[in-house]
């Protein structure tokens, strides 16, 4: 298990934030809601890549409140959808390509690149837009 690495990308004057993943590890790109725009994978390499909604603790785990069983089904699914650690995309074997997602996340954006060899890591550009609030 990798220790999470906080990545700070400045808010650009236009467009979305962008970060190039080129080594194994766990990268926390955003702490807060937003939209994952695309995952452009330019090199498959060896290993797996997972995109997660949530912010891990210092040990790389996603602690969250347990979901109580007596909630009704609608509430249960809503809570499951908003929990920290929800996997949005999982590439057990990374496939090259430009994967356009436009997927929303509630808690944060974390990328986990695990397995494989450090010299043969998957390489991917992650583009996302943090939530900037509602304008009237």
């Amino acid at each position: 298990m990798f220790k999470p690495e906080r990545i700070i990308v400045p808010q650009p004057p236009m467009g979305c934030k962008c970060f190039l993943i080129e080594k194994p590890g766990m990268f926390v790109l955003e702490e807060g809601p937003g939209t994952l725009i695309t995952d452009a994978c330019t090199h498959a390499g060896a290993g797996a890549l997972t995109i997660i909604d949530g912010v891990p603790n210092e040990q790389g785990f996603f602690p969250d409140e347990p979901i109580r069983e007596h909630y009704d089904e609608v509430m249960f699914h809503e809570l499951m959808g908003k929990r920290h650690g929800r996997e949005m995309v999982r590439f057990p074997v990374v496939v090259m390509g430009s994967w356009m997602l436009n997927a929303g996340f509630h808690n944060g954006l974390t990328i986990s690149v695990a397995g494989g060899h450090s010299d043969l890591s998957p390489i991917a550009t992650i583009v996302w837009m943090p939530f900037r609030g509602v304008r009237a």
Partner: protein
Amino acid sequence: MPDWRNIVDEYVPCAPGSLMRSCTIERLGFTRVCRRACELYSVQILSAGPWVRARVLTFSGRPLWFQPSTFTGSFVLMAGTCEDEGGLMLEMDGKDRGASIVLNWREADVRMY
């Protein structure tokens, strides 16, 4: 960060009514296509070339896109931003000639400045 004297500048116009710009680059080395903050829309590789490695980076050297061994295809980033006011560069290394790479990006309207 490369020596700035080794950077070749390309000047690319945009069409009236559109702020999107496009440029094909086939030379090895550093080529700067834009000299202010912009949105990188896509990187398209039309011809992989012989043993070519390509990287798109901001002028201060932050990599935005990298392919260690070029492969023909279209990599759409939608709006991956180069926040650096110095602009956007393509670095290409290879054996004797480069790949054929098309960059598409959008610069801000000059009225923003």
